[in-house]
Each structure stands twice: as C-alpha cells, then as structure tokens.
C-alpha cells in the first residue's frame, strides 16, 4: 500500500512538472508580450520595452528562465526587478508582472475563495444530486423518474452562464432577495462568509446537481440489475436494505470518481461563477493573468490546478478501496 502511494505521488509530480514545462513553452509560443501589456498601446519606446523585458528576465533564453523558475520552486531564489532584489522563498512561484506581488501570496488569498465556493457547491451536489438520482433509479420507468430525468436534462442543456447571470441580476442586484456575491474570510465573519457565497452556491449547486442526479441514477440502475442484488432480494431482505446496503455501495464508486475529479478540476475552473458573482478565486485570477500575459501568475494557477487534479485522483483511488470492497489497493 505504501509503495503504491509513493508510486502515485511520483507519478503525480511528473504530471505537474510536465504541465509546468508545457505551460512555459506555450506562453512563449503565444502572441502575448508582458512588456507591451505593461506599456499599454503604442506608447513605449523600443528602449522602454526592452528595459521592461530585461527587468522581468524575459530577454534571457527560455530554457534558462524555465530552469530558474523550476529551481525556485524547490530552493527559493532572489528575484531582481529593475534595481531592486527581493527574496522569494520556496516554493517560489515568482512575482506577478502586473501587481508585483509574490504569486504564492496571491494564490494563498485566492484559494480560500475558490475552496469556499466548492465546499458549499459539493455539499449541495451530495445532498441534492445523489438522493435524487437514487430515488429516480428506485422509481425507474415511472412518471416520477421521467420527470426527474426530464428536468435534469432541461436544466443541463441551458448554458450555465445564462441562469447564473439572470440570477445574479434579478436576485442580487435589482432585487436584493439574496445577498450580493462577495468574499469574507470565514475566520473574520462566518455569517458574512456564508451569505456572500449563498448566491453562487444556489446557482452552481442546483445546476451541477443535475449531472450527479443522472450519474447516480445510471449507476444505481446498473447496480440494481446485478445478480447479487437479485439474490439478496430473493433471500427476502427488505427492499430498503437491498437498496442502500447492497445497491448504493456499489453504485457509489463511479459517482465518487466523477465527484473527485470534478472537485479537482473545479479548483482551477470555476471561472464563470467567480466572475459573475464577483468572487475572485483561482479561476478568475488565471483568466485575468492570461489577458495581461502575466506569466508568473498564469504558471502559478496552472501548477496549482494540475496539482489539485492529480491529488484528487490519488484520493479517489484510495477512497475506492474503502467504498467498494471488491477493489484492493496495491
């Protein structure tokens, strides 16, 4: 088991490293120019642009920049920008070209925002999506089942940003029935934390639950069709016990996989929600950094998102063994 864990961690690190390298080269292959972005339109002299590039070490060979960056993550480094030298302790993800703040610090302020959104949303997935799917599977073929499936498909077919924008506009701005989106640290004020996230939780929670409803239903239907379930039923075990003890446990595995991967991916990708509800998390920060060619922030967000995905992969694999006794981790 321990060997398996080490093997998975090593694999995860190689994936994150490969992502970092790819991101680095893609940035330089693309059309963005941080120096020009900082200069604005047309107004910097060629010398000025050159000075800015030099201050960000963008005039150095790409491989050297990559090497310095990678080493900084492991050992930390000193970053010289203009005439000033600043320390950047490990894991050093550099300083933002635009805001001149350490990227590690930026991520430390943005991750709690994204995490706060996801905590509420995934609780709603579990509370709404899973039971609804199980219920539909249990009533398979009935009008209730058709209603649930039809509703989830209808909701799921509408692009997310439409209900999100409409909800934000009519429920939080024009009529303040739900508090406006804003982030307050849970440590500062738990009530304000929850109320500022409520709108995002409601919209994304309900919207995303539709997918989990369908996953859970499909998985449950398959599980209930298994021989061992039929055996349990023929032995006279109560339907409730068959459903939850035998059926659900087996049905949970695929749902858990999706749950874990979805959670990992969401850390870097809740862009619409963060933008619409004015919650400046990792996704919002990454998109902003892309528009200004802020390489250190782009890479920092990319590495973070990749790390979360691979980490959740590992967690899900281990959780499999706990949930499904047929699976042995080795």
């Amino acid at each position, binding site marked *: 088991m321990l060997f398996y864990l080490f093997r998975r961690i090593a694999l995860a690190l190689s994936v994150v490293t490969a992502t970092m390298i790819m991101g680095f080269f893609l940035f330089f292959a693309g059309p963005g120019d941080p120096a020009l972005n*900082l200069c604005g*339109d047309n*107004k910097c002299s*060629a010398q000025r642009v050159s000075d800015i590039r030099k201050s960000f070490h963008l005039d150095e060979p790409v491989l050297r920049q990559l090497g310095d960056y990678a080493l900084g993550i492991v050992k930390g480094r000193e970053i010289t920008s203009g*005439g000033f030298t600043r320390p950047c302790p490990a894991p050093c993800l550099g300083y933002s070209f635009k805001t001149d*703040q350490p990227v590690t610090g930026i991520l430390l302020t943005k991750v709690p925002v994204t995490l706060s959104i996801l905590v509420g949303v995934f609780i709603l997935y579990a509370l709404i999506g899973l039971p609804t799917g199980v219920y539909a599977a249990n009533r398979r073929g009935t009008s209730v089942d058709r209603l649930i499936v039809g509703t989830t498909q209808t909701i799921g077919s509408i692009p997310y940003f439409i209900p999100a924008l409409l909800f*934000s*506009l009519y429920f939080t*701005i*024009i009529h303040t029935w739900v508090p406006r989106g804003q982030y307050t640290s849970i440590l500062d004020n738990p009530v304000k934390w929850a109320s500022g996230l409520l709108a995002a939780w409601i919209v994304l929670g309900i919207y995303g639950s539709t997918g989990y409803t369908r996953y859970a239903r499909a998985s449950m239907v398959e599980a209930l069709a298994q021989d061992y379930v039929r055996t349990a039923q023929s032995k006279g075990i109560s339907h409730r016990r068959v459903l939850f003890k035998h059926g659900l446990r087996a049905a949970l595995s695929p749902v858990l996989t999706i749950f874990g991967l979805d959670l990992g991916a969401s850390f870097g990708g809740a862009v619409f929600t963060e933008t619409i509800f004015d919650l400046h998390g990792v996704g919002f920060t990454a998109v902003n950094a892309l528009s200004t060619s802020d390489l250190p922030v782009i890479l920092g967000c990319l590495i973070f998102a990749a790390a979360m995905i691979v980490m959740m992969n590992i967690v899900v694999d281990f959780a499999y063994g706990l949930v499904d006794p047929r699976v042995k981790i080795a």
Partner: protein
Amino acid sequence: MRWTKVVALSAVGALSLAACGGSPADNAKSGKTTDSSGGGPASSAFLPDAVGPAPAVSGSKTGGTLTIAYASAPQTLDPSANYYQDTNVILKLTNRTLTVFSVRDGKSVLVPDLATDLGKLSADKLTWTFKLKPGLKYEDGTLIKAADIVYAVERSLAHEELPGGPAYQDEFLKDGTTYKGPYKDAAKTFGGAEAPDDSTVVFHMAKPMQSFPYFASFSQFSPIPKAKDNKDQYTNHPLASGPYMFKSYNKGENLTLVKNPNWDAKSDPARHQFPDTILFNFAKDPIPSQTAILASNGADASTLNWDPVDASLVQQVMPGGAKASQLVTGASPCVEYFSMDTRKIPLEVRKAIAVAFPYDQIRKAIGATPLSYKPATSISAAQVPGMTPFVVNGLTGQGKGDPVKAKAMLAAAGKADFELSWYYSTDRPSSAASNEVRKQAFTAAGFKVKAIGGLRADIRKRVAEPNAPVNMLQGPAGWCYDWPNGDSIIPPIMGSAVLATGQSVGFLTDKKVDSEIARISALDVAKQGPEWSTLDKYILETLLPTIPFSYDQSNALFGNKVHNVVNDPNIGLADITGIWVDQ
C-alpha cells in the same frame, strides 16, 4: 499624455470621461444629467491667488463611506512612477503637490497647493522658484520640507527602479538626461532641483518650460522624506499630505482611505474631507457594477463608477431617462484620430479620404453611445484654453461620408484606385468591426484597400514602426493632453522631432509647423492658447495628417446617496475631492 493613461482606466475599450456644467447639487434634484459641450470657454486657467479652504459645497455633510468601483486596477500608487489618470485621482486625495487643479463651477483651474503661488520664473526663463506654505504636515505629524520635494523629483528620475512615470523632468530639468535617480547616483548632486532652505524649492531648467506650473501638479512633485523612502514598497503606503491617507491596500483588489488628521483644510484651496472612508474596489466588472449602482440598494447607493456606461443602460441615464440624475458626463482630455502617412499619401488623396470617411458607421460598429463621444473637429481637445472652434476640409467629426464625391476627387487628382493599407487587431472586436466598415466605405469611394490583420500584441508593435509597409493608422490612435495647453498636444505628436519614436501622428516634417512649435512654446503660457489653436487649424487645413474622430466624453455613474459629483475635464474623471454621501 499617453493614450495608455486612458486605456488603463477601462478594460472595455474607448474611455469616456465626463465634464460637467451647471451646479452639481442641482443634478440630483432636477433629474438632469449635466453636460457641457465639447468646446466652449477655456476650462482651465491659472488662479495664482487662490487660498484655502476650498469653496464650500452647499448641503454637504461629513461622514459615511464613499465607494469607487471600476474595471481596471492601478499599476502602482507610487507617486514617482505614476502616469495614469485613475491613480492621479487617488493620489490627489492623499498627496499634495506644488500646484493642483481645482474644479470650480465646471471649470478646472490651476491653484497653488503646497506652494504659496504658481511659481516665479526668472528673467532668463531657466529658473522656477516655489515657496512652501508654512506648517504643513504629513500624516504622521512631521513637517513637510522643501528638501522632500527635491528628493521626490530626484526619485522620479529613477526610471529603471520605478518605471512608468512621465519623462518631462528628464527633458526639461538640468541634469535630467544624465542623473539616474538617488539609488544609482546617490553620490551625485542633481542640478535640476535644490532646496536652499526648508521652505524654498528652486528648479533649474535645461531649457525653458513655460508650462512648468502645470507640470508641478503631477504626483512626481509630492514630497517624500528620504528617510521614509522604502523604495519599491513605497507604493503600498505613500506618506500622505492630503485629506486622506492609506488604511489598507490590496494591490489589484481594493484600497481603503481614511481621514488624515494632520491635513490642514485652511491651507488647501482644492480639496474637502467629507466621507469618513473612501473605498476603491478595483477590477470590477462594469456591467453588474453599473446595474447595481442604478438600483442603489445598500452599499451600491453610495458607490460611483467611472467606466463607460454600458450600451444596455444608456437609455436609463440619458436626459429624460428614469435614472438620468445618477449620471454626470462631460469632456475629457482625450481626442481620437485616424491618421494618414503624409509621406506616402498625397494631400489631394488625404482630402478624398476625409470626404469618404464613415464616422457614423464606425461609431455604430464599435458600439459608441451618445454618452461616450462628441464629434471632433480639431487635434486638440475643445476645452483647452484659447481653442477656437473651427471646421476645415469638411472635418465635422460626423456623417456617413460621401463616396461619390471622394471618387470624383480621386479621379480629378489622377489617383483612382489609390491603395490604402493599415493594420488592425483581429482579436479585438471593435477593431475588427471598425475595419470592416472602413474597407467598405473606402472601396465604395474608389480606393483599393489592404487591411492587414493580426493579434493585438503583434499589431501594437507594428503600428509603432515609423517605416511600416502601410500608409494609414500608424502611431497613436488618440492623444490625451497632460495639461490644458497646446504644448502638451501639438509638439509630442506633430513635430518632426517625434518621427522616429512611434508617436508621430501623420509623420509630418513640415518646417513651418516645427518653427511655430518653437515660437509658440517660448511665449508666456497665457498667450499660447490662441496661437496653438491657429496652428491646429493650419495643420488640419493645409497638411491634413489626420482625421479627428471623437472628443472622448467621460461618464460618472453614481448611487442616489452620492452628491456633488463633478467632472474634471483635465483629468477626464470625477473629481472625488468634493463628493459627499448621505449616511
């Protein structure tokens, strides 16, 4: 002023800023948006005898929190490195300078700030002397000294360590081109400024600069004690001398200002201290922000936004609209142009281009609203003192163009099928849309058109090349003056000296223009205005290097608890220093 100063204010394209006319207090009562025409009387003058306190604002109350929410975020709040208008507004609240603009009755006038007057010029025009008002303090209670201003100016020359600021001090102050700032040249003496005593600042010029009193209103002239200079960290909390001081600053996110207890209202002719707190929220999506302000629920009622009003909200805030009282509009220092390379396009062809130019169609394509522009007829913004409105060569700044007449003009000049070429950004919707309109209009007028598309970052480099293989739209797409005088407009973009810098509009190399620039620049500032106006007209009438497109207008949208919102036409943003809020 660089076009970048304007672009930095809005992430959504053309900036519009507002000038106001009439009493701001009337705005809320009458339901009218205030608006001044793009032209009209001089909107800035010298008021050397102005003394504090600033003129009273009727009905004003102290207290409460004013929130300013807008789309972009300041790159730096270091006074030495600042060159953006939104940052100017912020630093005007916290950092006093030698002189300052004060908005009075809709006009922006230059008044003494830290100094007792607008400076004394020596007979040889190479020395400016300012005396400081006595007893002025920083937020920590220490006295402001002349040496602090000298240090601040020296620090503004450290372009490598503190990039981004203007370069006038390099060009006009003695030693400006050789002195590299107090970090690199600590052992050197800077000959451009000295403080013979604690209350006197003397500037030694490398060449005359009649507009120096205007320049002295820049944040680079706000005092910085050398002992308090923490270099690249100074941006996080510049030492305040104005009515407000930094309480907290999260770069890119928000800034909170609170009252500075050591600010002396009686010494300040330009500012007030009404709200207890002023909160700046950066990087806010303008559409929900503006929608919320118009709804004026909760904190939105005491919020102001100065991004261009979104087209979806325009009807609500136009005169007669339900929310018209929540908008102030007016002039900005910015004018947009469509430039033609005078080296490659003959004058007769340039005149035909002007006749064919599809102003209205371009505005429709880029989504310009009536709040965001006024038709431009001159190179200089209309409110610059001394500007006399004129229309030459049919440059009315509006209309659909006349392709038939243009075609005839081309034929008469023997230039039928003359090729026009330009760059445009394919990844910028407004650029792509505008490009299509121009292509159609000029093709209908008998031109051959070659539009070269590219990604924005690439196009930016190309339009700055003086010898690019195109003949239109090179150089700056507009110009915002640094101060309301023609020497901040014509020389930086029309003189032959700027040909190789990527800043030339039309690539003029006209001897008369150059000699007029030199002659007018040497005149007393009070006499320069009409001369620049005459030169502006001459350039457009005789040389036609560019088609003036729009005088940008500014918008300030505010909640129904915000009062006394007035526009500063020299900044192109609301003047925050006199705003008060209901609690």
